[in-house]
């Protein structure tokens, strides 16, 4: 990051690697843990969240001078909830199998901390184009983490990858990885690996520091200032 990067590319890099929402910022853990049973579910969830994130960032950025400061959070929630409803209906119509697999976690995109977090930390003070790129970067980072977690769980838990058998039949799959505990384990090891290779995770700050705990709602006030500061340092 020493050389000046194109600001759009910088946003992408920031979202996918430097501030990866799942692995570095530890946001949006609920869908990450819940839908990562299979790689394909990870992709479905990741891409639908990305779509919502790009559009919500775009709309919020366009309206950033119109929405009064005092009611901005309710306004954001309404915007996000409308977009999520549209996504939900589209998926029900065109991708019924993915819709079935993700179930209740699609409407729950509304309360995904990543979306409100980016609205508050980035979209409401930046230009539309950069906000879109920020949404794209964050969304792809989220998709990547979800797909990786899904792939690991799928290979270990049922011996398949994207539905194709990869482990020989003679190797019995480790069932626990397809079960809820596997989700916690896989993400724990992901974060530990990130720690070990020295990509600074922020989770200590987010989890341990005062006022910022509880992720989501709490982060909007005190934490997002920190996040915003972090991205300015980029």
């Amino acid at each position: 990051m020493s050389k000046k990067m194109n600001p759009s590319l910088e946003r992408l890099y920031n979202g996918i690697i430097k501030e990866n929402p799942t692995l570095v910022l530890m946001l949006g853990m609920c869908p990450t843990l819940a839908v990562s049973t299979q790689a394909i579910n990870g992709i479905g969830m990741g891409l639908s969240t990305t779509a919502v994130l790009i559009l919500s960032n775009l709309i919020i950025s366009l309206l950033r001078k119109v929405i009064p400061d005092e009611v901005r959070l309710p306004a954001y929630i309404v915007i996000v909830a409308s977009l999520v409803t549209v996504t939900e209906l589209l998926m029900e119509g065109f991708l019924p199998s993915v819709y079935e697999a993700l179930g209740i976690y699609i409407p729950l995109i509304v309360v995904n901390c990543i979306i409100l977090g980016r609205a508050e930390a980035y979209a409401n003070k930046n230009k539309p184009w950069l906000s879109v790129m920020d949404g794209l970067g964050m969304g792809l980072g989220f998709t990547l983490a979800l797909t990786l977690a899904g792939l690991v769980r799928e290979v270990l838990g049922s011996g398949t990858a994207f539905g194709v058998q990869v482990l020989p039949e003679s190797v019995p799959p480790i069932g626990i990885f397809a079960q809820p505990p596997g989700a916690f384990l896989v993400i724990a090891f992901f974060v530990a690996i990130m720690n070990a290779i020295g990509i600074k995770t922020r989770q200590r700050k987010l989890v341990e520091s005062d006022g910022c705990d509880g992720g989501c709602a709490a982060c909007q006030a005190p934490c997002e200032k920190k996040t915003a500061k972090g991205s300015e340092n980029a």
Partner: protein
Amino acid sequence: MKELILIIIAGALINNVVLNQFLGICSFLGVSRQIKPSLCLGGAVIFVITIASAVANLLYTFLLKPFNLDYMKTIVFILIIAALVQIVEMFLKKTSPTLYKALGIYLPLITTNCAVLGVALTNVQNDYDFLQSVFAGFGTAVGYTIAIVLLAGIRSRIREEDIPKPFRGAPVVLIAAALMSVAFMGFSGITW
């Protein structure tokens, strides 16, 4: 009656909202440093989820369903939850300052706690009537409280252990949660 008790037990233990359905993970990992704040948050969550499931059920049955506005449920639910949290906060501030002081900072957190919206949506999905919704909400919230208080207890011990460096912080907490989840899987064998 038996069915209602079953709903509570299923919500609290068998389908534990945190360890089995992964709702409310943010606050589960975030506020579980010490036992007392976790208990306070658990109390606030029980309070809000029970009321929210009641209100969501009434709104769904008497407003959304008759007018065929089923697809609006996500928007309507999240708005009533946000409004409800505000009302509960103001109400507590006026009537019971001690309780407000105990729960105060945790109440706003609950708006974006996905467990609340999750319960409201699951109730609709399961076609629960009013009483069933309230009991399901209560059971789920009790399950949330059990999980977060247990994790807080574990974490207060983890803090004194010598943990390999990469695992310090979030990873070891996630592993503790994984082991708790394994333990809770044992409840899934319960049949009546």
